């Protein structure tokens, strides 16, 4: 991939992969299966509208509103939809909550199933062989690579997303945040903390 970008910069040349994508788009457009403007709209949606800030709003609301938190843990699909986030790769949501004794971690060992409606497109590492191979067997080692060291007493609960259920981790609310608004709290919620490979930021 690096070569690809490199040659682009150098020559303005088109990489073989780019040619394949272009060829496919052209022929499928000619055959009437593709509206190229829809491709622009899809890219725009995942670049700017559907991403981890959606999930962060869900988590921040759960931190602030005990009733919402209960609803989220009981029926995540409906609770999340009430904030306007629903649909593709989030049709059947389950929210799992971290506590002092329990840490949740989400993976898809078989492909790259991920809760797109609340987190957007998965990061490369989530789709990579090392993460998919090791998260289920050596979760503590994986977490260490993300700089997360859990107490030995903490139990780790790993959710392998093997069907169409998608998991959102509700991390623990950082201490010293009692005075923060929901919007400020959402800013502390990182994407990785909602997958379970990270923890929320500490307040500034």
């Amino acid at each position: 991939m690096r070569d690809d970008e490199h040659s682009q910069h150098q020559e303005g040349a088109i990489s073989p992969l780019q040619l394949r994508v272009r060829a496919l788009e052209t022929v499928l457009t000619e055959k009437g299966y593709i509206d190229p403007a829809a491709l622009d709209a899809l890219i725009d949606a995942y670049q700017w509208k559907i991403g981890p800030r959606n999930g962060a709003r869900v988590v921040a609301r759960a931190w602030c509103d005990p009733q919402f938190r209960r609803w989220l843990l009981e029926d995540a699909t409906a609770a999340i939809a009430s904030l306007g986030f629903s649909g593709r790769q989030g049709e059947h949501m389950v929210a799992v909550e971290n506590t002092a004794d329990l840490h949740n971690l989400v993976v898809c060992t078989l492909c790259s199933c991920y809760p797109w409606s609340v987190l957007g497109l998965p990061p490369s590492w989530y789709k990579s062989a090392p993460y998919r191979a090791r998260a289920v067997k050596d979760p503590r080692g994986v977490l260490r690579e993300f700089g997360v060291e859990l107490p030995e007493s903490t139990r780790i609960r790993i959710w392998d997303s093997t069907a169409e259920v998608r998991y959102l981790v509700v991390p623990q609310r950082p201490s010293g945040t009692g005075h923060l608004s929901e919007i400020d709290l959402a800013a502390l919620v990182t994407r990785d903390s909602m997958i379970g490979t990270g923890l929320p930021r500490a307040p500034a």
Partner: protein
Amino acid sequence: MNYRSYADLGGEEQRGAIMPEPEGELFHAPWEPRAMALTLAMGATGLWTIDMSRAARETLVNYRSLSYYEIWLAALEKLVSASGVLDAPAPQPPRVLRAESVAATLARGTPTSRAAASPARFAVGEMVRTRAEQPAHHTRLPGYARGKLGVVARVHGAHVFADTNARGLGECPQWLYTVAFDARELWGEGSAVQRSTISVDAWEPYLEPA
């Protein structure tokens, strides 16, 4: 029948480092966004199901040497070619995802829950054993979780069954369960230090009473 998935990675020795990535970094080559969008737009035509897409991806013989969007692109080429759409003039007006309906289509998604034809065989808290044999077709029970003793942690209702849907044999909805295993059951006593519980989501045909 010889069906081989190259995608079942759980528990493998994979020494490569996991490279954390900043939140806004979505693509790593200029062709990737277009390949992603093409895959989604063609999915919306209904020419194949998401389970067929997964089967097309996991059976790519060079799966292990491709980046993820390269896998998507190669599988899309395979699906397009197998569907015959390039050889024939488009049938009737094909179902096309238009720009103006993208937002609504994404917000709707494609739910896989269905009415159940029979009552659930297992209940939360029940011990179950996963089937040991590896079927010769697309399936979603990872190798590491075959023939293992677990406990039903959640019951999700009946869902489209990936094993049949991927082969064009219909949705055949089946009860779906979250089945949880102690790490020691999957990886042996040495994994006790992990203090972990691992679950998979398993359709009823993957399970038998323990």
